[in-house]
């Protein structure tokens, strides 16, 4: 039995209609991709050329006349962009690693161990998941300032761990694993830590990986919290650096395609 529908709702159409539909799909793809392609191509231009060929619209508005890596060289050599990249890399990796460790442990207990207050704890996870982070900006800043963490990696990393969503996701996955495995392991002398470490984690590798990647990606792109909790240029992350380009000094905005 085939349960996945594979477009059977689209009946074979006349040749003309099919072409129109294909053209529409392609046009949409261009709308979604073209700005990004333009950004990348512009990043290959020498500075003088960036705004030179915009009017009138022609092939050279899109394609650089002289391709060069000057912009990238400038970013890395004349501006501490390497430092910003490293900061983002450190923060995103640390949050992702700590989060997956802390969240998977909590998720295991919530899914498998019976203890008083378990339901209340799960409710806590759901509550934190719903609270919009933006509403916590001011108090979090005050707490971090009180801890003396402003302008430090601790400020960028510690308050982000754990992510309630990671706990929720992993708990759902752990609950789906067969309980017989736990029982078998217990008979073989495993305790909770052994079951978590030798059974749950190896069986959940794909989920653990996607949770880690998801956290990394979100942290790499995170902007508001780093903007608020750091002032020192040494602690600046990529997104804050990109947001400050072309502001005030009238210099042309570099195409930051390397920071996606």
């Amino acid at each position, binding site marked *: 039995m085939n349960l996945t*529908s594979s477009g059977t709702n689209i009946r074979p159409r006349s040749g003309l209609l099919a072409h129109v539909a294909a053209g529409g799909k392609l046009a949409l793809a261009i709308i979604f991709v073209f700005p990004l392609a333009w950004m990348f191509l512009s990043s290959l231009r020498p500075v003088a050329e960036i705004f030179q060929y915009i009017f009138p619209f022609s092939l050279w508005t899109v394609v650089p006349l002289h391709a060069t890596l000057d912009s990238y060289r400038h970013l890395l050599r004349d501006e501490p962009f390497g430092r910003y990249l490293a900061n983002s890399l450190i923060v995103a990796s640390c949050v992702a690693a700590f989060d997956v460790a802390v969240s998977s442990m909590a998720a295991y207990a919530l899914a498998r161990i019976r203890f008083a207050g378990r339901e209340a704890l799960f409710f806590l996870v759901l*509550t934190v998941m719903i609270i919009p982070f933006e509403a916590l900006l001011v108090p979090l800043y005050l707490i971090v300032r009180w801890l003396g963490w402003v302008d430090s990696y601790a400020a960028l990393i510690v308050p982000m761990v754990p992510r309630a969503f990671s706990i929720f996701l992993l708990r759902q996955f752990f609950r789906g694993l067969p309980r017989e495995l736990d029982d078998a392991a217990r008979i073989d002398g495993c305790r909770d830590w052994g079951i978590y470490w030798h059974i749950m984690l190896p069986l959940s590798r794909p989920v653990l990986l996607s949770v880690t990647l998801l956290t990394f990606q979100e942290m790499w792109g995170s902007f508001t919290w780093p903007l608020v909790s750091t002032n020192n240029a040494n602690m600046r992350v990529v997104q804050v650096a990109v947001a400050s380009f072309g502001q005030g000094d009238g210099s042309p905005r570099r195409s930051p395609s390397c920071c996606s």
Partner: protein
Amino acid sequence: MRWSLRPETAGYLFVLPAVLGLLAFGIIPLIYAFVVSLHNYDLVNPRAPYVGLANYTALATDRVFWTALRNTSAYALMLVPLQTAVGLSLALMVQPSTRWIALLRASYFMPVVVSYVVAAGLWEILFAAPNGPMNSLLALAHVPPQLFFQDRHQALPLIALMSSWKWSGITMLIYLSGLHEIPAELYEAAGVDGAGGLRQFGNITWPLLHRITLFVLVVNTIEAFKIFTPVYVITRGGPLNATMVLVFHLFREGFRYVHLGDASALSFVLLVVILTLATLQFRVLRGESQG
């Protein structure tokens, strides 16, 4: 005797680090925000006087706050239908999975992968006035140069357009997972009965996607009310407060003017709006699964 833990204790040890984190950086800040909102708090004066609900009443007479609330709602009203409709259309278009279709899927999803800051910066350049690439393109069609983000009627709709360009891929993905769960037999039966593509959509696809649509609508609305990054990057609330939104107002009050009490009162308004939406979502989803 071997040293061993009662299962209860093991449970507590497993959740301890997570609970500490959730309390210290989730629940305690939330309570603290409420405390701060009752005080006239700034960073200079260490002894913030208690002012009761004065920060809230001040908010009620703050014209910028009402502008921000109106703009945020308007933004949600523009973004949510647009992103949902585009996401659904994309999902329907890329449904039969072939190699070419996979390429299309990847294209539609591409802006999701780029960071919000970069996407916003990119649109700022593309729609630069009066000499940006978009105006150059419009000139081909003999359209006079537009002010875009510097025009107080165009700025907010353009930010909504930008956000739906950035996020429609996610909505597409959610709808695709919904489409996968519709049994193919339904379409086969409808085809045998002579129902065309449009009628199949109206009688099978759309009703069966009902739950997913509700989910998408609520999630997108919540996200819309949290809009901040593109406003910060492109317009800083301008021109003439035309793109002043709740979170940007909160950010400016709290971190530029250091009116922490006012900012915390604003945080609570934001919280109430979003909790209301989340409760609505929960109710709707639960009601659906029962009905």
